[in-house]
């Protein structure tokens, strides 16, 4: 089985995002594999082992993303592709992924349900549409039996079990697998695993971020005495007007 996992290189989710000159200043922040992509990667390593297949990771990013790609190799991917471009928006990234997938004919294309930087949740759906493949999002469980996958998908108020034959695209989330922490052997072998850099295809884009702002701060909290619960009810009705 040929498996592709697409990863985003994002600021550590524990980090606050500092602002400088009206823009997020990410210079002092460490970067990680986006958490949902990390879940997809963890399950992909297990499925690669089960099917004795090949697992490739792909990132659209400039050279600064290579440590993040190496981490994915240390976790267990066999090789990696970096499309040498700034990931301008979801349509741009999806177009690059689809261009590579058209040549490589992957059986599974996995990624997170959304990235934790721009939270668009668009790339999986766009890639599926561009390749004419079915797409399952958000995928919480993925088991393979031959070329048929049984997946659990979260729906409003519950879950559903779906079946689909390969090839397909899935946007993953927990609890599809436990995050894997690279061991020393993985880290050593990652240094010599192939990381191919390819140039992007030209893509016309339709969105541009024109401005960043800090999120609005809440005015200071109004504390209410625990023996005066009625006051909270009154404030919610009369001041906040939400009841």
């Amino acid at each position, binding site marked *: 089985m040929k498996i592709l996992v697409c990863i985003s290189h994002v600021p550590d989710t*524990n980090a*606050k995002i500092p602002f400088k000159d009206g823009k997020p200043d990410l210079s002092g922040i460490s970067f990680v594999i986006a958490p949902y992509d990390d879940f997809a990667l963890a399950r992909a390593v297990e499925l690669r082992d089960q099917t004795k297949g090949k697992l490739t990771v792909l990132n659209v990013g400039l050279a600064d993303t290579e440590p993040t790609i190496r981490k994915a190799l240390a976790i267990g991917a066999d090789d990696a592709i970096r499309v040498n471009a700034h990931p301008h928006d979801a349509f741009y990234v*999806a177009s690059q992924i689809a261009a590579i997938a058209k040549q490589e004919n992957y059986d599974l294309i996995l990624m997170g349900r959304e990235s934790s930087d721009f939270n668009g*949740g668009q790339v999986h759906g766009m890639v599926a549409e561009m390749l004419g493949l079915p797409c399952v999002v958000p995928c919480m469980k993925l088991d393979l039996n031959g070329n048929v996958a049984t997946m659990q998908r979260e729906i409003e*108020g519950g879950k559903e079990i779906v079946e689909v034959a390969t090839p397909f695209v899935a946007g993953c989330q927990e609890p599809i697998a436990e995050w894997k922490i690279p061991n020393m052997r993985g880290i050593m072998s990652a240094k010599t695993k192939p990381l191919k850099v390819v140039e992007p295809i030209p893509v016309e884009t*339709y*969105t541009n971020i024109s401005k960043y702002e800090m999120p609005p701060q*809440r005015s200071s909290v109004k504390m209410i005495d*625990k023996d005066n619960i009625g006051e909270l009810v009154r404030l919610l009705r009369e001041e906040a007007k939400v009841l």
Partner: protein
Amino acid sequence: MSNVLIYVEAENGAAKKSFLEAVSYGAAVAEMLGGKAIAIATADLSTDHAGEVAKFGADKVLHYGGTVVQGSQIAELVAAAAQQENAAVIITAKSINADLAVPMIGAKLKAAVATNVTALPDLSNGFTVTRAAYTGKAITQVSLTGAVKVLSIKKNASGLKEYNKVLVVESFSASISPSKITVKEVKKQTGEILLPEADIVVSAGRGLKGPENWGMIEELAKTLGAATACSKPVSDMDWRPHHEHVGQTGIKVSPNLYFAIGISGAIQHLAGVNSSKVIVVINKDPEAPFFKSADYGIVGDAFEIVPKLNEALKAAL
């Protein structure tokens, strides 16, 4: 003329409230553009309830006689309707299926896509929308330059507005491809208020000490007509089902009122709730970081306060 097309998802015959909000949002955008607000719904919307779609702003309701079950099918339906109506802007609220349809529509129509939009667009210089980035840690203005724009709006982006338009229903036909995905089983809790749709959310965390103590949370939610939610550790320990988990890696909610009970307020949890209008925090630790992100706070033991609050609300509402 620039028309606006709004996808309306329905359940039990009626349009979901967040999708009626999308209709009001679409009507406002249509007014700005000098076009019509046209809704597209499937047979899930019964014609008895179509009046609500006109009430909240649709000039016309396109009614597709079949049902669609997968995101790809919604995408086909909406793209066909958009082409028929010459829509310049396509709007939807968030749902599991609509969220997948949005990027597919974008790729089909080579449209500019923006998800999680939090306010009406600014048309003073092109077409600019506001959306959160870094899971709520920053706000961005995104300029959309495509000939067609697709927006998925968050709850409370502009709210419900009564337009009381005359109901016009037109039947709509489209050829929708069969899905390659087979649904084998659906496990859904019925009768509960769905978290993404809820105006009020009652959420609890590890401070509750165990799943057996959720009765008082459910009672409080029932009094308020609220949905129940939980923090990540609680769903990780299987005290509550995963679809109740709000936060960075769970569901992001933006209700009018969010109660956080026994939740300390880790940055990942705040990321999922910080666009709520009003936040009430109940925690026995006065140093809990959540108080810094709250509008109202009570320091005390949840086991003492929640039943008292429930009684006070029952008396008042």
